[in-house]
């Protein structure tokens, strides 16, 4: 059964958005290198790739780690234009970054139709529980009302970082399958996505 349902490997563009120093680069670094180190603010944007091999498919993540600094906001839309998924990252110890994440969402909603992009709300730095300013429920509730995936992570302790990307991959695969069955499409069409850039 597995063999016959295995999807061709596909590319999946993920963009990390959020205020400066919420830990976007640290999350990307943790996911790609499985390591954590003190990082400096990103200049412009950094691009990473990472293969994820699932039973049913292998996915090549193309990760755009954007700079949260205000001066780069004007160019950010460049990076999320072709994205299949967006991680809206905030710092759970800084309420302001949560509010900023909401603004990012508004930007995304302007750019994409509801089912065009998968959005995950990510509260980072759970290792700093003592300084928490945004309750888990608050994030969860907001994500629920907006139909976003929700995760709390720590790039430092590695908490839920892999799971976040895994969840995105699973969800995208799921959507792909639904779309395929919805249109009654079969393997031949899936083959096409091998060459296209559209994900999964």
């Amino acid at each position, binding site marked *: 059964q597995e063999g016959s349902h295995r999807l061709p490997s596909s590319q999946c563009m993920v963009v990390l958005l959020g205020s400066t120093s919420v830990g976007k680069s640290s999350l990307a670094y943790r996911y790609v290198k499985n390591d954590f180190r003190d990082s400096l603010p*990103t200049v412009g*944007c950094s691009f990473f790739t990472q293969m994820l091999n699932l039973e049913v498919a292998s996915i090549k993540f193309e990760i755009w780690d954007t700079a949260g600094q205000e001066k780069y906001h004007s160019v950010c839309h460049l990076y999320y234009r072709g994205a299949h998924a967006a991680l809206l990252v905030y710092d759970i110890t800084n309420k302001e970054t949560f509010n900023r994440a909401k603004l990012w969402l508004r930007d995304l909603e302007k750019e994409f139709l509801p089912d065009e992009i998968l959005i995950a709300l990510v509260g980072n730095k759970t290792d700093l529980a003592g300084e928490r300013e945004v309750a888990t429920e608050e994030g969860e509730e907001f994500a629920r009302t907006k139909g976003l995936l929700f995760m709390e992570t720590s790039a430092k302790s590695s908490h839920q970082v892999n799971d976040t990307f895994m969840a995105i991959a699973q969800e995208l695969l799921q959507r792909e399958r639904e779309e395929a069955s919805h249109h009654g499409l079969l393997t031949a069409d899936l083959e096409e996505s091998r060459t296209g850039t559209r994900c999964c």
Partner: protein
Amino acid sequence: MAADVHKKKGWEVPNGSLAPGDGQHAERSESPTPGLAQGTEPGAGQEGAMFVHTRSYEDLTSPEDGAAAARSPEERRGEPAELTSMEQISKDFSELSTQLTGMALDLEEEMRQSKEGKLEPSPQTTRRDSVLSGKEEEDVTMDAWRMHRKHVFVLSEAGKPVYSRYGSEEALSSTMGVMMALVSFLEAEKNAIRSIHADGYKVVFVRRSPLVLVAVARTRQSEQEIAHELLYIYYQILSLLTWTQLNHIFQQKQNYDLRRLLAGSERITDNLLDLMAHDPSFLMGAVRCLPLAASVRDAVSTSLQQAKAKSLVFSILLSGNQLVSLVRKKDQFLHPIDLHLLFNLISSSSSFREGEAWTPICLPKFNSSGFFHAHISYLEQEMDLCLLLVSTDREDFFTVSDCKRRFQERLRRRGVQHALQEALRTPFYSVAQVGIPDLRHFIYKSKSSGLFTSPEIEAPYVQEEEKERLLGLYQYLHSRAHNSSRPLKNIYFTGPRENLLAWVRAVCSIWVSLSSLVLHGRAVGEWHNTGVAPSPCAVLLGVSLHPCAREGWAGIAVGAGELRHRGLCHVLL
């Protein structure tokens, strides 16, 4: 004021265009020669405009209050008319080499006074000579913040702080008050003041609407050199925002707080200021080359040339702050200032170590109104080799990223990776390799290529202060050589700790530090009189030179090919 400001904007006319030109001619240069702009004299071009109208404080006030009479001897010495005799230069130099450690000043107090128009040092605020003479107990009473050798502030014309080099919050609040007063003072005086000289320090203003840049320096740099550094800071800000955006912002809102937009970039500016204090590149207005066998460099350059793309304007390979190779699109030139800004950007951010960066960047000397898009990445994880691909098209990331892949593949196929790796292990050469006894250090700059070569700074310049002192000496020589009212082509100094030579010509310049013994002993009898002054430089570089020295000099000056042959520098003459 506005009119005055606009009058001075002539230099801002872009000297290049972001457009890659019409497609057919958009080929890359056939030659692997680094495409640096010609005529790269530091201070050439734009700065001239600024200083033409310079009037010192004394000029403005001496008729009324006789401030001129109160000027210190040191200050008067700074005047062109008195810079003429070699004797004087020599005297200055010995003073300089013993006094470069500087002196303590109550800057803030001084500046308050300047605001009130009383510039002459009052008894309370004159230098405290003893303070810095190594007495430890005085350290505790010193305000460390005030002791920095060079403060740099950037403000908006509305007086809002934009940047402060040593910006502790408390220090900032009081200082910015003074700065604001100064700015309004500038305003009141119709922009007349460019610098204030006081006992042992200079306050230099550069106004580039909508910003005002201020340096408070205890270094012995000339006003022009300090202003030149301030301009670098200005360009640094432009490289992040573009001139167009900067102006647009302040047209919209005069008292905009620019710190918001520059947040997170302070370290880039800090790094630039630190670099300028240590690296002669900025003084020379040239770029240092990584020593590398010519064949290897040629292979690298060819590989870079072959990995081209339509939108690619410059492909640059660098290691540390040294250029390995630069390839450019035909007819496009990269100004050393722009290249320095790129080097600084890369050296001040570790974030480029991971992944591939894609960032908008303005190259203000090329075109201050638009952004390029730079692809920045390190070739190998553990190798200090950074590839910088500058594209005109922000959508072109994947094409440019593929250029990187192709470049690496070519390198591999040409089998030069190993040689490159070897070269990176010894990124500096020893002055002993040049083979001149008593030669301590030199800088050789080729003006046509905008490159310079220089050996590692070795003994006796081991300590950080000694290194800075050496650079200070070069700065001093440089300011003398390029003094606008009396430029010098040959300079020779006998100092207590070393002898210095400067030899400045249209195609190249050489700056040398020799052991203080050398010329007294060996070559003293062979001095030539070139008509300006006894100039051992001319002798050393030319005819009647001591045989053993001549051979070495040939390596630096006459046969620059020699250096290329030894891989010390890419293209020199």
